[in-house]
């Protein structure tokens, strides 16, 4: 019997997350060298907003499912009891307000809570995938993870960056000793910094002792970022390593095609008008930094100094639009959870990164001050096997 899926989403337009993620279950997707057709069927859909270009009605007609006016009805397929085997929550895109920290208030927690209400009332819970971070609020995110533990249903969440192709295809050995880590990202806060933070987290969670939580964060912006580099608060060696993986340096490369050593040729401050650095101090002493360098490049690159191995670096390959095949990598993992009943990697990763991001943005509006984060004492172990696309 195919897995019966309910999709709960904010908006279903061309190239929204809902479209390119849910569609994988309708028309198949490239997976391990085949056009894979999941043994699954979308049976119901809830969509919060239907702006111009809405595809939900057309999809429902073509693929034989129904669009319901509420989440509870979608999960019960119009009946009395939970009538699906799995739920896909995709709360990205759509018109939602931002809070004072600049976070888009996507209703992921609210959607999830309504699913949990149905699970509780109907006495049965099914696996849930939540696209991207759990919530803009760590408190709400924590509630979500706790609910999945309480009701004992498998839960997977997060970005596609941890599971996409890597150039080169590296994985840090489980139990390695990471001396320092740095991630370079681009794009707007809070959607894109989240992707970058989760990409870094999926690498460093493999360190000796596993993840033991974050004790403090600090976010700085502007000139202070360059000064922090000169003061050694972030490593230029690691930034060089990360940028050595970039295919998208801007400035002189765009002008005349030349390669550039951006860390040492003096161009970086000219290209990046509004740099930001997110400093993360982990409970076990590891220091990690995210540099958001809009204007310098357009891809996502990681570097770390690993004891015994030296510098390790890679690019998280965001394959081109419109195929965005990285979302096929992610749906492959979602399908794996729906089939096996086990999340292939811990949702705690997404929980801690949701909290790191929120606290960094809090630091930002509180004068870029260092914030202690005792609430981020999230502990977990990384999966033994690699979970990114490599086959």
């Amino acid at each position: 019997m195919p897995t019966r899926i309910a999709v709960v989403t904010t908006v279903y337009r061309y190239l929204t997350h809902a479209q390119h993620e849910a569609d994988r279950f309708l028309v198949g997707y490239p997976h391990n060298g085949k056009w894979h057709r999941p043994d699954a069927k979308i049976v119901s859909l809830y969509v919060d907003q239907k702006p111009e270009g809405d595809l939900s009605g057309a999809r429902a007609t073509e693929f034989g499912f129904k669009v319901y006016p509420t989440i509870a009805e979608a999960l019960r397929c119009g009946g009395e009891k939970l009538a699906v085997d799995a739920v896909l929550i995709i709360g990205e895109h759509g018109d939602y307000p931002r809070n004072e920290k600049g976070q888009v208030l996507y209703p992921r927690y609210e959607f999830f809570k309504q699913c949990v209400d149905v699970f509780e009332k109907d006495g049965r819970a099914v696996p849930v995938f939540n696209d991207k971070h759990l919530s803009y609020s760590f408190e709400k995110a924590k509630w979500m993870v706790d609910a999945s533990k309480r009701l004992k249903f498998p839960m997977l969440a997060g970005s596609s960056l941890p599971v996409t192709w890597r150039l080169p295809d590296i994985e840090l050995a489980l139990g390695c000793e990471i001396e320092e880590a740095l991630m370079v990202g681009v794009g707007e806060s809070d959607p894109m910094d989240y992707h970058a933070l989760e990409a870094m987290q999926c690498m460093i969670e493999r360190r000796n002792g596993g993840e033991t939580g974050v004790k403090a964060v600090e976010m700085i912006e502007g000139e202070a970022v360059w000064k922090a580099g000169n003061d050694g608060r972030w490593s230029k060696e690691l930034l060089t390593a990360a940028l050595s993986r970039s295919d998208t340096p801007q400035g002189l490369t765009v002008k005349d095609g030349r390669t550039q050593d951006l860390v040492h040729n003096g161009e970086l401050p000219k290209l990046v008008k509004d740099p930001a650095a997110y400093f993360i101090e982990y409970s076990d002493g590891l220091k990690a930094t995210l540099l958001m360098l809009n204007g310098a490049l357009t891809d996502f690159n990681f570097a770390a100094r690993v004891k015994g191995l030296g510098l390790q670096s890679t690019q998280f390959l965001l394959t081109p639009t419109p195929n965005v095949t990285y979302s096929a990598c992610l749906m492959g993992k979602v399908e794996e959870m729906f089939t096996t009943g086990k999340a292939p990697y811990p949702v705690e990763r997404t929980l801690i990164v949701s909290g790191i991001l929120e606290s960094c943005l809090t630091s930002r509006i509180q004068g870029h001050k260092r914030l202690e984060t005792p609430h981020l004492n999230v502990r977990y172990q990384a999966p033994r096997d690699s979970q990114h696309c490599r086959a």
Partner: protein
Amino acid sequence: MPISRREFIGGTVAAPLLLIAQKPPSRPKLAAVCTIYHRMSHAQHIVDRFLDGYGWNSTHHHPPMDLVALFVDQVGNDDLSRERATRYPQMKIYPTIAEALTRGTGKLAVDGVVLVGEHGHYERNEKGQTKYPRYEFFQQIVKVFRASGRSVPVFNDKHLSWNWDWAKEMYDTSRDLKFAFMAGSSLPVTWRTPSLEMPAGVRVREAMCVCYGGVDSYDFHGLETMQCMVERRKGGESGVKWLQAYRGENFWKAHQAGVWPHDLVEAALSRSHTLTPAREGFNDILPTLDDMRRIVKDPVAYRYEHADGLHSTMLLMSGLVSDFNFAARIEGRAEPFSTQMYLPMPDGRTTLANFFTPQVNNMEKMFLTGRPAYPVERTLLTTGLTAAGVESLFRNQTRFDTPHLAIHYQATKESTFWRT
């Protein structure tokens, strides 16, 4: 007065025709011989990496060698070679190839030559081949070698020549003069998604590359994509017996008739990151045959048989994909073996054509060791296959026998593609 190394060599050459293969110096000096040097030309991508360095293994790597001489055949308004020579004064621009190689000394004065004969304004012949002067440049290079009684390693970008006889002569000359000779496309050495190598010594029954571009252009890249994989099969490369090209309606007829295996087409398409959506509103959907007929306006196939019975097929499907995808049927495996040779293409997707990075890195290895990193016979064969494809198309898509392509060679044991 101490005798310089060059004077010493010049003074001790016993006879002009005695060519001595020498151990390369620890920091070689190079000459680059190029057709044109503008933004996004192959010369810009390749020569710039020797001058400005490039990202490699977690650092900004500067090749441990000096590019000291440059010849550029065509200098237009968009030329960048003069700007580069200003920024890198150790690199001098010379008006002739001979002067670039001798650097005003009358004798060969470099330890390696990079020949980049791609881009620039050159005539096309009646078969549609662009007459890039790689053979002519090569002849001028070996003239200096002969006159100097010494030869040095040469890298030739892309295929050896549009003209098979000339390509064969280039190869034979490199053997006669005993210099390390390397050539080809960046496709064999770029990233792969997934990062897989063809297992050595397997029996391969069918190989396929689904890619894009034009005849006497990207077809060569598609052929190199396949060849760098199938050359690792049991027995090594044994040469190609015949090739047949299909274009337009003949292509679709052949496809429908199952001249090439559909499962390998689907496997290759399933590796693409650039599949044109066959339906509006869908971002990534497998096309049907009707979809493909609508999307691909000018399809081209080269199908050919190797001497050991392997059949290879290269499909140029411009409009449907803009990447290079490989699939093969290997004995003992139920599923096709497939990967994409990933090009970070600066057509809007990236700004740096970083597939030139592993190509330059492999050149460096040759210039440092005096040995090619991979066999030039691969490119000799793909040069012949490219010309055979053009010939078959020119002869109304008839089968073209290729006894001249009985080229035998063994693949390198080590992988040479970008994986670190």
